[in-house]
């Protein structure tokens, strides 16, 4: 147990409560886009993969890290794009409902 681990655990614990709080009132209609959007966010493992490749000189580690970079990027890019395509569908009928002035 060291100071850094405790600091990281603090961040972790706060993020758990925040994650639950953030989506507690989501309507059913948005379940799928929300799942897809948060799906893109865990693509942040890409950063870890970049660190692995960028700091290692072992071929095996670089191969593993390279595949992880490709995977992580697919997760991020594909995830955000697919979510945007889903949400684009909702956009066109917004004026009737929410912004009658526009």
């Amino acid at each position: 147990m060291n100071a850094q681990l405790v600091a990281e655990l603090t961040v972790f614990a706060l993020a758990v409560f925040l994650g639950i709080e953030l989506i507690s009132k989501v309507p059913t209609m948005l379940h799928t886009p929300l799942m897809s959007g948060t799906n893109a966010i865990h693509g942040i493992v890409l950063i870890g993969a970049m660190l692995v490749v960028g700091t290692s000189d072992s071929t095996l580690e670089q191969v593993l890290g390279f595949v992880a970079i490709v995977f992580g990027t697919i997760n991020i890019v594909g995830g955000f794009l697919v979510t945007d395509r889903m949400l684009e569908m909702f956009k066109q009928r917004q004026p009737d409902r929410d912004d009658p002035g526009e």
Partner: protein
Amino acid sequence: MSRTWIDFAYLVAAICLILGIKRLSHPRTARSGNLIGALGMAIAVGFTFAIDGLEHYGLIVAGIALGTVVGVVSARMVQMTAMPQMVALFNGVGGGAAALIAASEFHRLAPDPGRLPGEELVGILFSAVVGSVSFWGSLVAFGKLQEVLPGRPIVFPAQNAINAALGVALVAGIGLTAGTEGGIWLALLMVGALILGFLFVLPIGGADMPVVISLLNAFTGLAAASTGFVLDNTALIIGGTLVGASGTLLTLLMGRAMGRPLRQTLFGAFGAAPEGAGPVAAIDGDGTVRTASADDIAFMLAYARRVVFVPGYGLAVAQAQHDVRNLGDLLEDKGVDVRYAIHPVAGRMPGHMNVLLAEANVPYDELFEMEEINPEFPQTDVVVVVGANDVVNPAARNQPGNPIYGMPILDVDRAQNVVVIKRSLSPGFAGVDNPLFYDPKTVMLFDDAKAALEKLVASLKAV
């Protein structure tokens, strides 16, 4: 750039991710939320390049370029109807990435026992196992939704006991591996995780797949957070944990929207149970099914005052959202009051049908949620059920003991007439017979949803 500034940039990125998720959960702000999330991700990745001592830029950029091409192409090409399995794949590769990072870190640190503190090792093993389960589980979910694997639940004796034993063995394996620090143990652990990923998802039926994908999504988030502990990277910890926590809650919310507790979804092997439940005995009428031609049905529709369409999974598969809209428009030209009833889980995922009908430009004010439309059915002349089954099965309302009993349904059996467009009498994902098909006021049109709607449009033009 100094580590402090990198960490500050990560803080900005984390705030973007948090705002992104928050905005994603409200209809008006959802799209901008997704963009803000993407912006946060770009900041996090961009500043990672600036970390002191990072080398092999060529390899990193090449990997990102390759991943971007694959991601863009697959996200652009995928049909709206195939969205759920695409999400499963994107989720799977994220889990795979976490597992690969863990394997690589293990290889780097393990040969030198002094360099590997216990909590670091636990983090590595956790992301290796959970990431692998998520990867393989997502592949099975993809296979089932893509119909490469059978969508039906695949059951084997004592599966829950075997899965539980495997899970315990994996946890024990994490402890053992942490003691020995040998590469062979890690390999064994990951093989075990592979098997668990398969066995965990195989018994779950296609209808429950969205809930499972959501759960695996949460798993991947936790695996990512765990790599954050290993690499001492706060952006990873925050991003991964947010997804892990919100994904877990979302999984519970989805289960509730479908009227299925999570425990039942995961361990109940939905659709394998109903044999001997005796649904046939409870069917009203004489047990015969009436069919009608497209011309008969078009005539009935043309002279109705109110028609409600109930689009379901079959419509999504047949890509018939534009055809149902054509038919609806024609009927409106004839002065018929046309509405669309959307069950919360119509299609393949909650909200999926809203997306499909929006794509076909169905006006928003004609879409009705289940609670709004249910009281209207007794005043409805004709309900047209297009490729839906379980969500209109009256057994959910009046047959205690039936596997789907208690699930909220659209009360279409209370309308004056019901037209069911369906390829065959075969049961839906739940594997339960549907008394609606045998109801005397129901007529069936056996055809592919798209073909049937095209015929109805043609017949209606001739009326």
